């Protein structure tokens, strides 16, 4: 096995969540958009909480966002990850929030409000998942 083989656990995919993870596996970042009222939503769910519509479209997202909050995880350490893990809540420009992690940044350079954008990394079983890196040189 190559030393750099992906080790991150693959997502738990359910019938309700597959819309997100299936797109991610193709390097696409998406959210559900209500076909009735146009509202975006994440995490995915079967009904629009604003208008009760069950009709849904897939909205392609740009992957651009700002860092709403973060956390630098030191302990416990799971062998699937490199530490510290920098957990991130990203507010995407389309108006939905995503939980992910940051790459390509030193923990001391992380700032709430910094612009970030999505890229995709493989997981242990193959599927890609979206993680974020800073948009500007630090």
């Amino acid at each position, binding site marked *: 096995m190559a030393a750099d083989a992906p080790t*991150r656990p693959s997502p*738990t995919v359910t019938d309700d969540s597959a819309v997100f993870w299936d797109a991610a596996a193709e390097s696409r970042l998406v959210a559900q958009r209500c076909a009735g009222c146009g509202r975006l939503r994440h*995490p995915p769910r079967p009904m629009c909480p604003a208008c009760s519509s069950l009709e849904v479209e897939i909205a392609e997202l740009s992957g651009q966002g700002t860092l709403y909050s973060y956390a630098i*995880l*030191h302990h416990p350490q799971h062998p699937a990850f490199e530490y510290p*893990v920098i*957990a991130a809540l990203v507010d995407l420009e389309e108006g939905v*929030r995503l*939980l992910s992690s940051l790459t390509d940044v030193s923990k001391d350079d992380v700032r*709430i409000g910094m612009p970030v954008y999505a890229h995709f990394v493989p997981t242990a079983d193959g599927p890609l998942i979206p993680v974020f890196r800073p948009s500007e040189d630090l």
Partner: protein
Amino acid sequence: MKGRRTLARGAASIVGVGCTEFSRRAGRTELQLACESITAALDDAGIAAADVNGIVSYTVDPVEETELVRSVGLEEINFSARIPYGGGGSVGVLQHAAAAVASGTAEVVVAYRAIRARSGATRFGSAKTAPSPTSGHSGTTAMQWCMPFGVLTPASWMALNSVRYMHEFGVESADFGRAVVQLREYAASNPAAWGFQNPITLDEHQESRWIVEPCIHLLDCCQETDGSVALVITGSQRAADLPHTPVRIGTASTAGLFEQEIASDHYRPDLSVMDGTVALGRRLFEDAGFSRDDIDVALIYDAFSPILLMQLEGLGFCGFGEAKDFIADGNLALDGSLPTNTNGGLIGEGYIHGLNLVLEAVRQLRGTAVNQVAEARTAVISASRTGAILTLD
């Protein structure tokens, strides 16, 4: 009373409490731990097992009701319930028990939690990567959105909220540390506590290793614990004939908001405020007709120290962002305006998933706490999403 309708005020009382020792390794099953704490609570109440007809616990509690009934010797169960949302739902057992009693659905209800959070198969603080989509109805379905990214533990979930809180209000780790120093001071004089005879300094807090930077040092974390706590609840009329001064459930409530989760509460618009706790505070105080000035002692769910500060603010004991000053001014101490977590809290005493905070509230109102608040008559208990006011009045 004004505002919305709430639970019938004072219709039910806590008349018995029991617990096991709190330890690193109980050396016996959760079922046995539950049997021991329930039997102790019934003895304390002066009520026979045969009189119990309601049982309430958490969805995540491993004890099977059937095994419990056949072990403790309960004759006929007419009401049972399990409360979701993990520790956030812990005070919900009082709401359900009181509602069952007030409505006549049950006459005597036992509420319990038995846990081997230290020696058992799964420690909350261990790194797990295979969530079940429903997560045991603990209110943390968002685990499935966390784990591929290495966000594996309650500390890491809560940290995302805590860091935003620090950012919004200029709160620093030492501000959390001052709360922990107070909790450990209480624990130091509590023989049941992990922190018995072992107080800490702020320097020791700051030097303890990071669990999650920049908000959770090792000493900001509760103590994963083995043990059990049980409570006996019955109607206040019957309670008057029992051995102990009844502790009335003045009110008990739940407040869960749109997009709110529990530890993994990441989708509310403003994470610097526990707005679910704001709603809970409104239910407990304004809606039920209690005043914050009536509160003699507070028990606040402190799985991690940041949520202690955020709940003090959410409940309205100080303004948003002001808990750090409220604590630095000594208000959580026995001689302060709001003695808080006088058993040492979940951080100092141990983590029976929040139910030991209810135990401490009862002891305070009975006048039997190890760190007794003088003439305590009214206590508030908050687990962020569920809460209660207990009172002698």
